[in-house]
């Protein structure tokens, strides 16, 4: 790693300085600005920083940050790991991450779905983990079928070993051009983007059509098989299987996960993390205790305290993410929902209508955020009683002391974190 050419060393040193300044002036966590300075000086910097490391790229619509964190924790059993822990998941963030731990023999990088081909091309990473693809921030994101097609092209003819969720048909299609794939049956709750065959457009036979993909029965949820009615595309035989609270490894051994992170989606992330770890020679017996140490990721799942109220913060950026958050939220507790529509959230709030909110009937629901009126109408049509609040603070004050769940989309979540001084 110290073999970087002088220009690259200088670029990466300058990048670190800019990052330090950015943090010191309170203008960010520093991970992106440092990388931008570095990339301007040395376009090949990312390639050079990636060389001679065992590198894992992690991409998906949901769960990238958490899975990156889980894999990183596992690999720390083997040695130092460079990672973009702040979720700065484009090339500038990758440069920052790798430059700040030059000696680390391992790297785990969260990669924005659209940037995966470019980052794979530049870094020549040996391992790629792919979990799920679903509709997200539709007024700016690429269409997901095109995204999967780009993954296919990027992976074809490369030596990279892909770890992919075979319960997601689009991910399976995106991964299946890779030279080597380990399939993980990690489940799929949101199915509304995978009723049609990505290969031929024919109907996929699978459980759950016609109920908005939500409120799947336990049997439907457990039935993750799928196959095209018109061509041969079907779910591959999994090497790893997530079965409720357990992961079954390729030798048939069952591992109780016992994570501190809540919910089915995090058990899916953990299953993928275990498969990645084993690829690098770390068996579940050594990896799992590390996964169990992770309690919150960039404020997600954190509990914060205010005037006797314990607020658990859940991030949900898109319809699939809301289903995951509902899975974690406690039906016995009041819940605060906060929705914005700034650039990073997507300015179109139509996606609210893809989420089935009826599951919230029967608990106190408080609605806030910049687009609270969109959410209010959505809940009114779903016949979910709620109370509208002008601010998050007001919503907290309305509720009696005790435990409260909070679900917010991206910028709404960041605003709430900022209120607590990012102490979370």
């Amino acid at each position, binding site marked *: 790693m110290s073999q970087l050419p002088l220009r690259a060393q200088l670029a990466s040193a300058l990048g670190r300085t800019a990052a330090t300044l950015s943090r010191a002036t309170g203008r960010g966590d520093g991970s992106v600005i440092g990388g931008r300075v570095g990339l301007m000086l040395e376009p090949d910097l990312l390639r050079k920083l990636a060389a001679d490391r065992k590198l894992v790229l992690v991409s998906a619509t949901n769960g990238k940050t958490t899975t990156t964190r889980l894999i990183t924790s596992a690999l720390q059993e083997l040695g130092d790991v460079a990672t973009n822990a702040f979720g700065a998941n484009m090339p500038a963030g990758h440069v920052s991450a790798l430059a700040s731990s030059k000696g680390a023999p391992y790297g785990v990088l969260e990669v924005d779905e659209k940037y995966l081909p470019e980052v794979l091309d530049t870094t020549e990473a040996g391992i790629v983990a792919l979990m799920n693809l679903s509709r997200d921030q539709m007024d700016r994101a690429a269409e997901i079928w095109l995204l999967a097609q780009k993954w296919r092209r990027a992976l074809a003819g490369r030596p990279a070993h892909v770890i992919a969720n075979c319960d997601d048909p689009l991910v399976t299609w995106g991964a299946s051009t890779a030279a080597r794939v380990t399939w993980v049956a990690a489940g799929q709750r949101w199915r509304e983007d995978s009723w049609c065959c990505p290969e031929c457009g024919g109907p996929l036979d699978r459980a759950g059509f016609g109920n908005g993909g939500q409120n799947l029965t336990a049997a439907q949820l457990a039935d993750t098989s799928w196959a095209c009615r018109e061509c041969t595309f079907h779910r591959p035989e999994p090497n790893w299987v997530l079965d409720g609270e357990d992961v079954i490894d390729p030798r048939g051994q069952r591992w109780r996960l016992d994570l501190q992170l809540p919910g089915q989606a995090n058990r899916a992330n953990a299953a993928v993390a275990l498969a990645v770890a084993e690829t690098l020679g770390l068996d579940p017996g050594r990896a799992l205790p590390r996964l169990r140490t992770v309690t919150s990721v960039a404020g997600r799942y954190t509990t914060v305290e205010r005037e006797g109220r314990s607020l658990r913060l859940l991030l949900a950026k898109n319809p699939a993410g809301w289903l995951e958050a509902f899975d974690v939220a406690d039906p016995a507790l009041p819940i605060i929902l906060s929705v914005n529509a700034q650039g990073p959230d997507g300015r179109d709030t139509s*996606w*609210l209508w893809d989420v089935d909110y009826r599951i919230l009937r029967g608990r106190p629901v408080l609605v806030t955020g910049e687009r609270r009126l*969109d959410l209010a109408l959505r809940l009114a049509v779903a016949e979910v009683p709620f109370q509208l609040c002008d601010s998050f603070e007001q919503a907290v004050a309305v509720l009696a002391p005790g435990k409260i769940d909070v679900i917010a989309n991206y910028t709404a979540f960041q605003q709430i974190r900022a209120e607590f001084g990012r102490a979370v």
Partner: protein
Amino acid sequence: MPSELSIVWIYPDLLSTYGDQGNVLVLEQRARARGIPTRTIHVRSSDPVPQQGDVYLIGGGEDRPQILGAERLRRDGGLHAAIQRGAALLAVCAGYQIMGTVFGGEEGQPVSGVGLLDISSGRGERRAVGELAADVDPALGLPTLTGFENHMGVTRLGPGVRPLSRTVVGTGNGDGTEGCYAGRIIGTYLHGPALARNPALADLLLGWVTGPLPAIDDGWYQALRDERLRAVLPA
């Protein structure tokens, strides 16, 4: 008035990318609020479109599903039969383009539509993304149209349709109008979803099938409309 209103959602497996389910839910809610029971049928693209429905909906989607959807609807013929029987139809974005004679495929190539609306669409120079506000054709007697558009389409209206509205903010068809209507078919580029942002449009569709409808409490609809229109219209 039918004893039970049947709502047919066409091809949600292909065309439901932008909260299109919302249009279904709003129709159900507004019928229910008037004591009209509803039954909703989700039609997969591999299944025939039933001919006996009352209100039909088709939504937005990516290029490839749009082409597949158009092919299947043409072959199926069920929607044509329903429209001839007097059913109402709301077609949104990609679904709107499909109703015309031709639209642009992923490389801009012309693809045949189903020919239920006298319109033809192609690909524009740049993507139209953002809030839209438009004055509805006075003949329909509806308040200002509001919604969110996200498309690259340019749609030319033939003599067989009338523009639904004249744009105040936004792109719409690309010629200063947004959407169109003919008989009991309404086409629009608007998401939001369109019927959540424009409950009067929902009532127009319902009324075509059920006859005159009593007023209902529109409080939350109105609050959202007011806020959105305030946000985009010049003061």
